[in-house]
């Protein structure tokens, strides 16, 4: 299946806390890499979630190779897989690198550090922190001659801040508007905005089929659109397995499952049945039906968002590296990568 986003160079992955945005970012990077692309996945919240996900040492402020894409095609002889590099961006290092790259400040750069300006700028100066983080992401997407010997990536995936903050995070020129109306920072921010607003960027939102995350996703999409930022797809994560047929769901919800038939069938395959066991299974089915109904109503809302959607199943055993490749294959098959 071909990608729904062939022109996108920067994939921004956001989502409400707890919906699995890092998992999706990591599997999207793997999925892109399995199509022969060289991918950089960036983390900006200091959590080292990517390192844990890929089971590697905490990431430094340096592009580190962490994985290779899946081999595709018959006998794995298809496209030569690309690589996944990861980068942990912290604002202090980004600022120092930026100053060195653009201003050749030399002594003044050191003085800035000595006088606590770096600390000030990155901890409290409003908006600056975000601009530094997005600035480094921008640099990775749009490499120029200033960064000598740097790897050229075919795609960059950003494990971004949560949905509630994403528009503000990407909307760097607005964030700085109150502070810098003219000057070099302003023009830098404007150049960044041109990329973020272009079809080369897509902001994907991760949600689960629960009321609050879906509501936040809808709000997030509205905010992104209002700010002129390109909305990508919605990735519905942690979807419950569909083990029960629809008619059985309805019966289970109404508490009208044919317990005698279930008991007979269990007996027939040698499960020693008790009333407790059969009642327990029926109760589990009822719970499941109730949740599925809730999921369906939320899914209907997601469908109304008017953006492409992708679905990842809940893995009962949790996520490990194998699980990530599994999710990557699903995302690729569905066309996110």
């Amino acid at each position: 299946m071909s990608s729904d986003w062939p022109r996108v160079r920067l994939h921004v992955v956001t989502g409400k806390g707890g919906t699995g945005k890092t998992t999706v970012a990591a599997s999207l990077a793997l999925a892109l890499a399995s199509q022969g692309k060289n991918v950089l996945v960036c983390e900006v919240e200091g959590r080292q979630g990517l390192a844990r996900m890929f089971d590697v040492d905490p990431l430094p402020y340096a592009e580190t190779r962490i994985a290779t894409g899946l081999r595709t095609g018959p006998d794995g002889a298809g496209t030569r897989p690309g690589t996944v590099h990861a980068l942990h961006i912290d604002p202090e290092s980004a600022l120092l690198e930026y100053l060195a790259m653009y201003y050749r400040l030399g002594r003044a750069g050191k003085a800035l550090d000595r006088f606590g300006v770096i600390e000030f700028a990155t901890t409290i100066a409003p908006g600056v922190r975000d601009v530094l983080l997005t600035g480094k992401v921008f640099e990775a997407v749009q490499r120029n001659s200033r960064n000598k010997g740097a790897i050229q990536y075919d795609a960059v995936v950003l494990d971004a801040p949560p949905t509630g903050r994403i528009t503000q995070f990407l909307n760097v020129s607005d964030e700085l508007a109150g502070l810098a109306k003219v000057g070099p920072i302003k023009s830098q921010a404007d150049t960044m905005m041109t990329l973020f607003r272009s079809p080369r960027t897509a902001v994907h939102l991760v949600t689960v089929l629960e009321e609050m995350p879906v509501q936040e996703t809808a709000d997030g999409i509205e905010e992104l659109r209002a700010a002129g930022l390109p909305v990508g797809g919605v990735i519905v994560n942690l979807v419950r397995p569909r083990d029960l047929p629809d008619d059985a769901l309805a019966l289970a919800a109404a508490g009208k499952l044919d317990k005698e038939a279930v008991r007979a069938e269990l007996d027939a395959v040698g499960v020693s049945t008790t009333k407790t066991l059969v009642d327990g299974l029926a109760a589990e089915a009822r719970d499941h039906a109730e949740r599925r109904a809730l999921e369906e109503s939320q899914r209907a809302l997601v469908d109304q968002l008017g953006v492409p959607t992708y679905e990842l199943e809940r893995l009962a055993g949790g996520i490990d590296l194998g699980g990530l490749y599994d999710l990557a294959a699903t995302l690729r098959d569905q066309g996110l990568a």
Partner: protein
Amino acid sequence: MSPAGPRQGRVGPLAAHPGESPALDVDALIDDPQTRIVVCCGSGGVGKTTTSAALALRAAERGRKVVVLTIDPARRLAQSMGIEELDNTPRPVADVDATAGGSLDAMMLDMKSTFDEVVLSQATPEKAKAILENPFYIVLSTSFAGTQEYMAMEKLGQIHADAQERGTYDLIVVDTPPSRSALDFLDAPERLSSFLDGRFIRLMLAPAKGPAKLMTAGLGLVTGALTKVLGAQVLTDLQTFVAALDTVFGGFRARAQRTYALLQAPGTAFVVVAAPEPDALREAAYFVERLNGDRMPLAGLVVNRASPEPRGKLSAEEALAAAERIEARRSAGATGELTAGLLRLHADRMRSLAREAALRARFTAAHPGVATAVVPALASDVHDLRGLRRVGELLARR
């Protein structure tokens, strides 16, 4: 060699096999008149807001005069509690059972106006105006990472002082912001203080005084560099902002320290909220360690959204094997689609349970003695008082 030398395979005295953690007695906590403040903390998306609202409602219906300070409740929950408006004032929640003599007020934090109020209370009107209009202040008060945390603590301090003075409430339940890390809000007052004491700020305030004189050459370099990067206007705004804020900072710092002391006081109890997921429990573990380190009183851990215990005894492996046997019979024409589905569903739940139990055991091994309440996942979202009551019952169930 340890004194227990001959006993082979003995683990060191600091390592222990995971035992059962003690149960968190929620009712004893909220019924105790000595408990004045309950702070619910944990990483984002673990049900902190619901837990704090449920605790507050339960305490109120058991006779406490409660106010709950929430940060960002789901819309329908906010509506059901009557706090859709962001007006920074606690409002009574309707339909709370007051037969035990308690009451419940609720409010949603308005970060910006809380910050504005502090400035207004600390500065002269002219100075306050200059600060409130400064572009740096506007961004700082609306979007600085940490402002929300700091303001939540500030508001807690205000409500507490007010409650002491006028006897309005005898229990304050606080929900903490969905921070990047659960630790952020504890650090917020400290971070503000250290910001105020930062070299750069002092430099901006008194460029020609005392020892700073020696650094004037360096300062020239710094301002030169800043002007080059930021532009001259930004620097002027920044200087105005810093100078103006300096006058109110003394007050700020004292308040931040008072709030911090309040959090260490015996009447405060921290409830760490988590979900049975590796990330959430890791955050919870950090938090437990941090609270111990800062001598903050930890009441216990609430694990939300746990898979409910099944009633029958049938392992995941048995269930899957039976499902396969049914499928085999089906391909030979027998019925059993439903039963096979039920078995797979059951296996799924058993596997989740096993995973969650392993995660909790890991937590308990590293943090023995942390009282824990496990709340099973509800089949539907909580968005009314009835749902909150149900969560309260589950929290208190031992």
